[in-house]
């Protein structure tokens, strides 16, 4: 007697599932019983990845060359060069004022006091913030020479607010500044390669992180701050991006020539380099850093007053809507 088709299909599916489960179990058991690979085997596996890595690198370079050729083949759009402090910005003429505003805000708020950076003097920033799809701008070499280019080309679909645009500019300026400090120097190793931090995020994490060093630091103990920043042990208990804040705070304190002094001392112990740049002792640098971080502590209920007004307006609009009901039009 033959079974109905749905029943046969269900039985076949069950059989498949059972077989799959059985093979899976066998495979897992085989994996458990297999001895762990030796060091030589692991080294061979790693070496086997070398050609693939090289292939990927060559492909990435070719893609970059193709992209550069595509950009070069496009008709050149007119551009304008804007100068904000030591920053040179190439942008579209209609966005020159916007670029000056945004870069000016970032420079004043985050990097004021950083003077004498060779990398900043050398680089050119290309800026666009457009509604449409962004086409990379061609930079006129007659105006900028053969300067390296740092691009901040944003579409408003992703970077909706001025705050987001400023954050991207901040990251780009920090990336260029960071390139002044060799990665293998002691200062470079301490800073790491992270982006520019959000001060509010750092402030919140410093305050709430479960670390005795942090608590001591908050209580004003310099050694606590030194330890929390990894300046004594190398292990940070605050977010690693906090290093950028200490560094810039030390440069701000040091005033004229501080960045140059910092670069001179890049191979000294990071705490000594910071104190050398700031022209004060470690206590002074740590106190300034802590004060700067706590001043940026996020206001947890910011904007509540504005929200109350907006809710009131919405309620009035909805009340007006409610009075227009058709319930009583009985005809």
């Amino acid at each position, binding site marked *: 007697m033959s079974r109905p088709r749905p029943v046969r299909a269900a039985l076949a599916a069950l059989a498949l599932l059972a077989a799959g489960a059985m093979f899976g179990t066998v495979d897992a058991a085989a994996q458990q019983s297999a001895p762990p690979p030796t060091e030589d085997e692991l080294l061979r596996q790693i070496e086997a990845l070398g050609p693939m890595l090289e292939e990927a690198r060559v492909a990435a370079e070719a893609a970059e060359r193709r992209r550069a050729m595509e950009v070069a083949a496009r008709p050149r759009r007119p551009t304008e060069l804007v100068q904000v402090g030591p920053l040179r910005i190439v942008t579209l003429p209609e966005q020159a004022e916007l670029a000056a505003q945004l870069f000016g805000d970032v420079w004043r708020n985050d990097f004021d006091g950083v003077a004498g950076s060779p990398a900043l003097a050398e680089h050119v920033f290309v800026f666009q913030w457009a509604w449409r799809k962004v086409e990379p701008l061609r930079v006129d070499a007659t105006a900028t020479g053969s300067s390296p280019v740092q691009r901040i080309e944003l579409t408003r*679909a992703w970077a909706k607010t001025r705050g987001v645009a400023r954050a991207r500019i901040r990251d780009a300026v920090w990336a260029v500044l960071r390139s002044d400090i060799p990665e293998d120097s002691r200062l470079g190793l301490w800073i790491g390669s992270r982006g520019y931090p959000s001060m509010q995020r750092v402030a919140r994490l410093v*305050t709430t992180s*479960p670390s005795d060093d942090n608590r001591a630091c908050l209580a004003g103990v310099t050694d606590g701050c030194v330890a929390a920043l990894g300046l004594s042990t190398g292990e940070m208990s605050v977010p690693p991006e906090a290093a950028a804040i200490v560094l810039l705070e030390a440069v701000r304190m040091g005033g004229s020539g501080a960045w140059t002094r910092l670069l001179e001392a890049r191979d000294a112990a990071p705490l000594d380099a910071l104190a050398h740049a700031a022209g004060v002792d470690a206590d002074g640098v740590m106190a300034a850093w802590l004060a700067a971080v706590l001043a940026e502590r996020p206001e947890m*209920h910011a904007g509540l007053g504005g929200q109350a007004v907006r*809710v009131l307006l919405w309620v009035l609009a909805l009340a007006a*809507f*409610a009075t227009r*009901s058709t319930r*009583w039009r009985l005809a």
Partner: protein
Amino acid sequence: MYQPMLFVHWKQVRLLLIPFVVAAFGLPMLAVQGLGADATGGVSAEVYQIVSGYQLWLPLFPMLAGAIGIVLALTAWNWDHRLGHVYALSLPVARWEYALLKMGAGVALGLVPALAFWVGAHVAAASVALPAGLNAYPNQLALRFLLAMIMSYAFFFALGSGTIKTTVWVVSAIFAVLVGSELLGDVLVLYFSGLEGVSFLELATDWLVEMGGPFEVFVGNWTLIDV
């Protein structure tokens, strides 16, 4: 005329309101329960425990505010719909005045759970010994709770005031925006290449909950204890 409205609405909602008042009073205290005690981890563990422990309860605050608003709004129109608007038509007031009086009565009744929440938040904040660096925000949280409740109430009050047909139209329009906006974006991008990468659903959601939209207050910061 306002007083009878308030009284009638109170009679309608008082039994339903009791559990909400209790919840509004108790929720902040439940949220801080066990926090700030003299844990073996010392003060550092306390700070972490307070902030992370409290985070788990955060979604319940706007949910409670929204639920109270819905209950108040539905009970506001309940007896009108049940009795065929006879009581309303018998009153010597215009329709718009009647609706506004009724809305005002609901808002006044909403102050009861809001007050309970405010007291509960203060008691909860006082029950935790806060380490340096942390602060309690009972007033701000209670104001946010009140605003969210009023917003929810106004929205559902407006929906409840209309005919079934109007309500269906409004709900359908919201549903159409949520479902159809991505589809519309895909079609428009064929004709306007500048719209590539623009998500209409995301824009609509952003407008509703972020950029001054009606539900902005629900997604704000609902912390009682934080930095």
